[in-house]
């Protein structure tokens, strides 16, 4: 093999290898270098159920952001989650409500936003006041059982 052919194949190998790495990061890891185009709002919930970090945040079913972090508010023991929302959707009214929903009956949980009617918009660091906690299946079943028992008593 000539020197030139070897250099070409080595160059090709390096190129393909680096391309594979970048592809893994971008396509599989879903890495977006431009994270600065997001803004963050917080929301408090009594119970977040099985919500995890990186879960989608949706508006009318369309994913517009992700859950950035999950923590506990030390004062009132509620769950405090931070939502990272794409800057393109910076026109959410301040009375927007957030609910933790489940895709399918037992599927992954996500945050659904429901826009309100205020003229002012949510900005970076704001808090969503109106929230609806996750439905915990055990609680739901418990309520149904109690109700059935009450009806049987009657």
């Amino acid at each position: 093999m000539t020197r030139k052919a070897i250099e070409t194949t080595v160059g090709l190998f390096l190129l393909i290898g680096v391309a594979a790495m970048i592809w893994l990061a971008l396509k599989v890891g879903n890495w977006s270098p431009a994270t600065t185009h997001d803004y963050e709002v917080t929301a408090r919930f009594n119970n977040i159920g099985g919500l995890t970090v990186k879960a989608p945040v949706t508006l009318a079913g369309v994913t517009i952001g992700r859950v950035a972090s999950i923590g506990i508010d030390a004062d009132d023991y509620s769950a405090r989650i931070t939502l990272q929302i794409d800057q393109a959707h910076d026109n959410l009214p301040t009375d927007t409500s957030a609910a933790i929903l489940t895709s399918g009956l037992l599927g992954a949980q996500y945050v659904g936003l429901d826009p309100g009617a205020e003229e002012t918009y949510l900005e970076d660091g704001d808090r969503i006041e109106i929230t609806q906690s996750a439905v915990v299946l055990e609680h739901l079943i418990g309520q149904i059982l109690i109700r059935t028992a009450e009806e049987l008593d009657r």
Partner: protein
Amino acid sequence: MNWLRQLGGGVITVVQHLGRAGVFLPGVMAATSILWRRPGLLIQQLYSVGVMTVLIVVVAGLFVGMMLGFQGYYTLVDFGAESSLGLAVALFLTRELGPVLTALLFAGRAGSALTAEIGLMKATQQLEAMEMMAVDPLGRVIAPRFLAGCISMPLLAALFSVVGLAGGYLVGVGVLDIDGGSYWASMQTGVDVYDDILGGIIKSLVFGFVVAWIAVFEGYHAESSTAGVSRATTRTVVTAALAILGLDYAMTAIMFDEV
């Protein structure tokens, strides 16, 4: 009493070996500076170490990916979670199997070849001849091979993961009829760039460094005989495989701790 003496002797030999390898490493690292002046040496070795290993890595990656497609499906289908197959395959490949299996193949294909080549050069006194001509064999022979191993390994591991993902897709979507969109979607929501992808790349960097180090060391310190070269080649593959698996456990434990 005799077995005690033998045991002690064995331990001393191992420690001595380790010490010699430790002293050897800085010399090789210092000698890599020659490659700024003669990059052609590195390109030659990237060809024989990296390019020549691509085929086996791609074929192995494809089969491992297809196997993961089947195995992952049969595990997940019991929980009705077969739509997460893409996530399972991606995590297996990027976190563990990509770096580890590539490193094992790399040690078998490239590491043994390096040791045999250097060992034979030593046995036929080519290295001494170089020193006679005031050519530093560490810079001329060892350093390019060492560096080529360090550079090739992460690239090969990334290639393995990508091909494996394609293999998983072939089986999952083509044979088992999972939705192609959910294969990619579950992967993209579940895989983290820093914990999973970067962790895998760090692993493959470490494996490449260790395998290349062991291979050139065993070759350079092989006994100058036919049997010596064959023993050194065997030692390279065995030591490298054990080092890869041991280090993999240690690194996984550390990275797992951080999550």
